[in-house]
């Protein structure tokens, strides 16, 4: 049902095998976990797996939205071959990987800093925590408009502030110059998502037993050493959880980038998702777009699996304390 069920050691000791007996329907009695997982599986199959199968099929057709009959034309791997040789696609692919890497790492570091600041606060914790989550209340589409206007070179808040403070007398073309546009998009993305990291890492800091820190201090560790060798290893699993959640949900950035630059100008900020979105609906070339989408899904899966393994390793590392 899923791409490839990962193998796991079968456990003989438990009588409750995830087990459906097909050749004897009369005595069929689903095991407890089957029953418990069934609703989840049904919903996910209906909403994710079936549509995914449909889009997988259409990626082998020249399907155009405005020509429904093309849905039934089979062209094999042509869409995929086109993509493999399309330089623009691979540039966008690379840029997406770069954006993910930069944004996720920045979000983690900033989230860590923010969480530590909030954790130390002796008063107003409740308010601070709520404020910390403030950006999560903003719909990504709104974030797009917001940062597009803020980074407007002529009348935007950012340039206005820089000019008022005398830091520059130029109109910095934030959304135009390739590197700056990448920065602007990263800022929008980081702003909207750092909260997720902060709240999870804060959870980690609050759960941390105080003894190891005391012990470290007694042993004469500097605050930096305490942080580096005691606190950090402890909160890393939380950071990886946040990473995993975020890498599950990165396509969220699509709404932001779509409004801010839509991949432009001259393709300088093109990401996989903007490319897929434009090919799919504006150009109406759904078949090709779905083939592209599979690359993007693959990318998400790689990121997610990678962080899952990191998470497992980090959990093991602190296993003793737990």
């Amino acid at each position, binding site marked *: 049902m899923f791409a490839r069920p990962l193998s796991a050691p079968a456990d003989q000791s438990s009588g409750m095998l995830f087990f459906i007996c097909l050749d004897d329907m009369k005595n069929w009695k689903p095991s407890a976990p089957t029953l418990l997982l069934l609703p*989840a599986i049904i*919903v996910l199959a209906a909403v994710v797996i079936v549509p995914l199968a449909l889009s997988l099929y259409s990626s082998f057709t020249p399907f155009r939205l405005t020509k429904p009959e093309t849905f039934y034309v089979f062209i094999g791997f042509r869409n995929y071959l086109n993509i493999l040789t399309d330089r623009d696609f691979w540039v966008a692919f690379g840029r997406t990987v770069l954006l993910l890497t930069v944004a996720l790492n920045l979000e983690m570091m900033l989230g860590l800093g923010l969480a530590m*600041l909030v954790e130390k606060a002796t008063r107003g914790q409740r308010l601070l925590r709520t*404020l910390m989550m403030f950006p*999560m209340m903003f719909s990504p589409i709104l974030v797009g408009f917001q940062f597009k206007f803020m980074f407007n070179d002529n009348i935007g808040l950012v340039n206005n502030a820089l000019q008022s403070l005398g830091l520059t007398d130029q109109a910095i073309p934030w959304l135009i110059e390739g590197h700056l546009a990448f920065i602007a998009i990263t800022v929008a993305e980081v702003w909207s998502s750092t909260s997720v990291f902060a709240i999870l890492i*804060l959870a980690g800091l609050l759960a941390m037993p105080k003894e190891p820190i005391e012990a470290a201090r007694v042993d004469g560790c500097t605050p930096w050493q305490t942080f580096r060798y005691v606190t950090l290893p402890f909160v890393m699993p*939380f950071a990886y959880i946040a990473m995993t959640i975020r890498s599950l949900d990165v396509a969220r950035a699509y709404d932001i980038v779509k409004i801010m630059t839509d991949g432009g100008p001259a393709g300088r900020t093109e990401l996989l998702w903007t490319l897929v979105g434009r090919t799919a609906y504006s150009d109406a070339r759904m078949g090709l777009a779905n083939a592209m989408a599979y690359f993007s899904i693959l990318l998400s899966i790689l990121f997610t699996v990678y962080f899952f393994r990191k998470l497992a390793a980090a959990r093991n590392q602190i296993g003793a304390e737990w």
Partner: protein
Amino acid sequence: MNENAAARLKKTLLRVAYWIGLFLAMLLICLPGLWIVLSSFRPTVEIMAKPPVWIPNELSFDAYVAMFSGIGKGGIPVIDYFRNSIIISVTSTVIAIVIGMAGGYAFARFRFRGKSGWFLGLMLTRTIPGIALSLPLFFIFARIGIIDTHFGLILVYVALNIPFTIWLIDGFFRQVPRDLAEAAQIDGCTRWQAFWQVEFPLAGPGIASAGIFAFLTCWNEFALASQLTRSVNSKTLPVGLLDYTAEFTIDWRGMCALAVVMIIPALTLTFIVQKHLVGGLTSGAVKG
């Protein structure tokens, strides 16, 4: 004495530095958002002005008044959107929690073949970007006639939220000692009673945190909603934001005002449950 004073001074300085740091961090976090809130109260001429107008000369509720006025007077069907958003977000959050609880319990308490594979598989369903799902979903929904209904969107959002909910709640149940439920069963409870009376109450914070994440996801989701909703029957607030754009013009102030209307309930809810939220995440996600 001198050493003491120096130490005290250093401590005070550190405290001051800390508060300044905290203040700056919060400022950075809040400023872009506050800009939106402020924009909703200012005349457009001051929002994007050059030279900038830093201190508002004039604040008014005009944008809010207009929002609730009739169509043609700058109004949009905000009440309908709000109702749709609430119904869809709350229902799908509740259902996702129930299904997630069942699933999480299965992973936490039972052993079965291919368990970790199933777990990762469930998680990976979340990696599919909305843009890849939107058209096939539309096809299917159009066939069975649930386009532009609450049900359609609720179904999608439940699916969107199940993976993370299962994950969080799984971790949480693992942390509740097995012995507790077993002891209750020895005392004469059925398995079912033991679950509701012993294990479920302990999972409260986990459920609260899963709930708030799920709610915020539904509340702000745009890509799928814009494809699967069409009219006031089911359009949600994020889709309604685009009512303020025309082909060549945009009413940015109006959009900001609607954004504020969207943010207030979300923020209030977060404020209420945030205590459980942090606790829930702690035990839920990691200790598993």
